[in-house]
């Protein structure tokens, strides 16, 4: 199992799609929530970030999405600084964020129209139906969100994000509100779509098995805390590279060699090391 320690302050010297350099966020000047967060994402990579509540994972994602600003540091995508939201960075929110007065079809068409405003109605319909089929909801395409289950709504959110074909997809604990059974099914679907589309993905999750199933790399984040030598802000202590073969399935995941080592390492981190940077 390969483990890279991310040295605070030095970004990985790769010509990645996304480069995050020394990101920090502070609500009170002397006690930043996190500081010196640096990592990068290559095209086609699936990266998960794991950590306890309050460490700042959602804030990092919001900064990447352009919905929030950092107190320190920079984010670069394709060489250009990220200053606000963009169609290049699609987001799947934790609560599906579907517009309840629109049907599934209209919700996704709204996104497609935002991306390609010059398309004709026929082109839009074709594109929408393709992505609805991708998440297996063709039978519910003309229903309103209130008529769908939680899992279905989240699938629509995923279809909407994929339909604009962004350079990078940001997922904020997309399956946190779902039951375990539905979660498993959607994880499989997401993995299939990502492999097929070669989508670059950055995902926040609490679920260790989910991270091991889906990601190529896992970022482990600690919370800010008081230590003997004063307040230490949170940050990324470790970057774990997933050694398991890329073609894996949820059903046989736990049989793969190296699985338990990886899992134990992450759980150990969450249980004992996550509190202090």
């Amino acid at each position, binding site marked *: 199992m390969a483990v890279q320690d991310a040295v605070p302050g030095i970004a990985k010297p790769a010509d990645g799609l996304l480069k995050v350099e020394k990101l920090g966020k502070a609500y009170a000047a002397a006690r930043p929530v996190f500081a010196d967060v640096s990592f990068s994402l290559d095209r086609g990579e699936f990266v998960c970030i794991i950590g306890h509540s309050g460490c700042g994972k959602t804030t990092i994602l919001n900064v990447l*999405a*352009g919905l929030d600003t950092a107190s320190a540091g920079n984010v670069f995508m394709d060489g250009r600084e990220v200053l606000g939201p963009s169609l290049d960075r699609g987001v799947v*929110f934790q609560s599906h*964020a579907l*517009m*309840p007065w629109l049907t599934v079809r209209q919700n996704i068409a709204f996104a497609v129209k935002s991306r390609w405003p010059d398309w004709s109605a026929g082109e839009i319909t074709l594109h929408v139906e393709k992505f609805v089929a991708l998440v297996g909801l063709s039978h519910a395409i003309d229903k309103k969100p209130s008529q769908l289950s939680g899992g279905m709504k989240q699938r629509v959110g995923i279809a909407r994000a994929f339909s604009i074909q962004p350079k990078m997809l940001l997922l904020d604990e997309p399956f946190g509100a779902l039951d375990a059974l539905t979660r498993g099914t959607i994880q499989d679907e997401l993995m299939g779509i990502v492999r097929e589309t070669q989508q670059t993905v950055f995902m926040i999750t609490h679920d260790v098995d989910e991270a091991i199933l889906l990601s190529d790399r896992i970022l482990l984040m600690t919370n800010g805390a008081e230590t003997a030598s004063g307040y230490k802000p949170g940050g990324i202590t470790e970057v774990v590279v997933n050694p398991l073969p890329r073609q894996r399935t949820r059903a046989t995941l736990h049989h793969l060699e190296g699985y338990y080592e990886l899992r134990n390492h992450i759980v150990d981190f969450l249980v004992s090391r996550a509190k202090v940077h």
Partner: protein
Amino acid sequence: MNESRTLNFRAAIVSVVILLVFLGGWYAATSAPGKAGATAGMTAEQIEYARMMGKDPGAEKATGFPTLGQMGKTVWHHLQNPFYDNGPNDKGVAIQLGYSLLRVALGFGLACLVAIPLGFVVGMSPLLRRALDPFIQVLKPISPLAWMPLALYTIKDSSVSGIFVIFICSVWPMLVNTAFGVSAVKKDWLNVAATLEVSPLRKAWQVILPAAAPTILTGMRISMGIAWLVIVAAEMLVGGTGIGYFVWNEWNNLSLTNVIFAVLVIGVVGMLLDMVLGQLQKMVTYVD
């Protein structure tokens, strides 16, 4: 489904019973004593004297609260011929209603045109909201009748004054509700619009407006109720035409049956106006 049907049926029966009890009470309270009873115990000279004083004891009660029978006759008479026009003091009920509804349409329409865009702007700008708040709070509680003198003095035309008073009284609920609805749009949806790089105009039309629509329509419904209240009061004061004027005119003629009939008409039309807006509201309501 069955449960709600039986509930509706039972409610209808109770409504009918309440109506019958009320009509029964009316009948009992207005049954006049007989002619003979009125003149009983009076000598011929006393009866002649009473007649000279204008209190003819033998005649049918022309004043006093109308009986059910008289009421029914009036209702039938009005419904039979609602569109007649015999001059400025004698027009059919439907024509008077038409004048009132026209004024309401103009005043309410004008109020919509002002309140909804202004409410939109106020809802989106916390600065404007706080700046305009004291003005709104002071102007909101002013009664329509208090506006009338100012309106008549400056506008001079009584009909236009009536429309202005409707406008100035029905604009506030729509303004306040629109501002509230717009400011309370869920952040999630605004974030979605932001990540999709939606232009401000498209965001206003396709995200904020549909999201705030139920609240805006609630404001419109309240405003419509107020507008209808106001027009009746304004017309009573100003006169000329309209259902409010009809009430006041018939009151001056001491024709209580006509007054009661007009009051009923006002109530029914108010209910119908509210029903129309209620339907509109249902159309824009969504389940989150």
